[in-house]
């Protein structure tokens, strides 16, 4: 039981594509069409407190596999906080408390038997600002495989590094300078390096916290293209401030406001036919 969480997923589990009516207590508007893939992560009544201050109120959300789910909403609405509950990064903040239940492949990730360190190997994360380690490009990508012992030989590690860089669309640009510092790359390249670093440990989920906010339009376009490719293999959750980006890369969208989940559904419907007044106001730029 304890180790079930860390077995490779066989893809046959989960609730299928049938629309599920989530058990929710708050009036969240959920559009008719169900998740695109089987549910990967399911959050029920998740609340987050920073000390006495509540940042997130009873959020329940189903996140399907092999899909890009965008979390949108004005600054301080709790979308990044929610993202960080999914790989328990909030554990690293001492006064932060999470209540509610988050299941990944049907198993509670906050259970005592789950080691957050191993969970994070399955749920990769990409941050707002590119944060390559002050090491070489090779060492940056090899970091995860090394600490988790994924490669038994130098050749195997080389392969992992190469495959990860190729999947992140960076191989062409850096294959001749793998041993120069990762911090010497451009911002967009650094962000793709960080994505390569995240996928080198074969995660199942990749969380992205405004991955393009520090990048120029061309680098942003490359990352968006990459996200679309990565969707075939991973469950991707992306926090973004850009409505256009949410519309371009995601299949499902969840709109947060003031710490509450307001509306969720297929991206197309949220953008063309929002049912909540606040959603409409936000996506048409009336606030936020």
């Amino acid at each position: 039981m304890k180790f079930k969480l860390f077995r490779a997923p066989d893809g046959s589990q989960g609730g299928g594509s049938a629309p599920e009516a989530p058990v929710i207590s708050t009036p969240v508007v959920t559009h008719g069409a169900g998740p695109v893939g089987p549910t990967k992560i399911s959050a029920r009544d998740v609340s987050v407190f920073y000390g006495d201050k509540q940042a997130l109120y009873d959020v329940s959300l189903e996140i399907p596999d092999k899909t890009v789910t965008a979390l949108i909403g004005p600054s301080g609405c709790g979308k990044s906080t929610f993202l960080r509950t999914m790989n328990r990064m909030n554990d690293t903040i001492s006064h932060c408390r999470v209540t509610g239940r988050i299941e990944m492949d049907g198993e509670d990730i906050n259970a005592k038997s789950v080691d957050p360190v191993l969970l994070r190997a399955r749920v990769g994360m990409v941050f707002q600002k590119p944060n390559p380690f002050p090491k070489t490009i090779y060492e940056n990508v090899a970091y995860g495989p090394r600490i988790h012992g994924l490669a038994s030989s130098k050749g195997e590690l080389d392969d992992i590094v190469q495959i990860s860089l190729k999947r992140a669309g960076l191989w062409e640009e850096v294959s001749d300078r793998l041993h120069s510092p990762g911090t010497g790359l451009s911002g967009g390249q650094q962000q793709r390096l960080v994505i390569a670093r995240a996928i080198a440990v074969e995660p199942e989920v990749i969380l992205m916290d405004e991955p393009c906010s520090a990048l120029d339009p061309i680098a942003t376009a490359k990352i968006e293209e990459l996200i679309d490719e990565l969707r075939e293999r991973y469950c991707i959750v992306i926090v973004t401030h850009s409505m256009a980006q949410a519309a371009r890369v995601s299949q499902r969208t969840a709109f947060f406001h003031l710490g509450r989940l307001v509306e969720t559904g297929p991206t197309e419907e949220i953008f063309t036919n929002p049912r909540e007044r606040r959603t409409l106001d936000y996506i048409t730029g009336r606030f936020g």
Partner: protein
Amino acid sequence: MTWLFLPILIAAAVAAFLGGRALARRRSEGQRAHSRPGQHGAYALIWTAVPALIVLIAASVFSPQVERQLMASGAPEAVQQLEHFRREAFYADARAVGAGHQTAQIWPAPYAELLPAEGQRAHRISLMLSLGGIVAAALAALLGALFVFSQIRPGMRARNRVEGWIVGALFACSAVAVLTTIGIVASLVYDSIRFFHSVPITEFLFGTQWSPQTAIRADQIGSSGAFGALPLFTGTFLIMLIAMCVAAPVGLFSAIYLSEYAGPVFRATVKPVLEILAGVPTVVYGFFAALTVGPALRTFFNTIGSWMVGGPLDGLGQYLMLVQNQMALVAGGVMGIMLIPFVSSLSDDIINAVPQSLRDGSYAMGATKSETVKRVLLPAALPGVSGAMLLAMSRAIGETMIVTMAAGLAAKLTLNPLETVTTVTVQIVTLLTGDQEFDSPKTLAAFGLGLTLFLVTLLLNIVAQRIVQTYRQQYD
């Protein structure tokens, strides 16, 4: 005496400020003046006070010389025929009599009778000089004030001129620090050169004998003087090495604990305590070393030695039984303890300066805390930490009190931590404490040692600052 004028001068300056301000207000009435009345006032204050102050300083610097001249020129025949130093003594006593004090010596016949008259003359002269100084200062203040008052009109740029004076005053203050440093270095270099005239520099740097006892009388024996400072350098190096062996790991690891693992409450308690520890006077560490650690370690080694005597390690046992209180290990160890807060506080700052995003990146990859520290934080902080270590080394080399009290005086060329060694700083202290003649090689040797110490610590500090600086730029 002249300085009694100071309160009056202050009052005059304040008056000049008020007057200047009022005058500026009146003259610029109805027009747009370049500067505010208060700035005119400040300008008047400066021009009243500064010339007068310069006169006062000049008067108190030169009046003793003028006074002596005047005394000499009007002195009776008998006094003029005295030897130079006796004449000076006579004038000094004349001044004392004039001021109503006792004479320092008893003067024989002709002079004793001359003293009261000369005393009165001295009194008159000093009074005249004081009055002269005060009048000159008052005149300077008056002229300055008149000059400024004549200048006050709406178009006068008092604002900029006051600013210029302020810049000048600030510059003068910073120049004091720089000039003092230059002066110290110059005196070090000058006296070192004198030392290297009597002792060749190669002998000083590479000689292995240190015994700076030179003969005071020609017939003294056994005091030829040897100035090979190599034993001092090795002693300093040995103690620095021992200190760093204690301070580097303990300081660094406590910094890692404080910045990465400790809870906010623990951190908030321990950091100030560490900083207090850094403020303990080194003399306290010194007697802790000499009176507590030294005897304890001696007892420890002597006991171990007594167990070994007669066994297979008899020789070592015999040696350990003779270990003394004063050894390199004691001085170095306690110095290491002294440096722990220094290293820890610097390293803590440097580790904290590593961006949080790198920690998050590592944790998000599923790394544990210690993996993150070992593989991300320490490599990122390494240049800064090594800079901190170099700074600690330079402090260890320059540290004086602990080694004076706990390391000993015998200059032995050894790297054995159980031996008594001496350091450069200890030797400077022993060479220059007590009554010394200032031209013997023995005294001048202290300048040679001081210069060496200065150059080494300067080099270490420059390198350390460079490293720390380039490291800081990397993340800013």
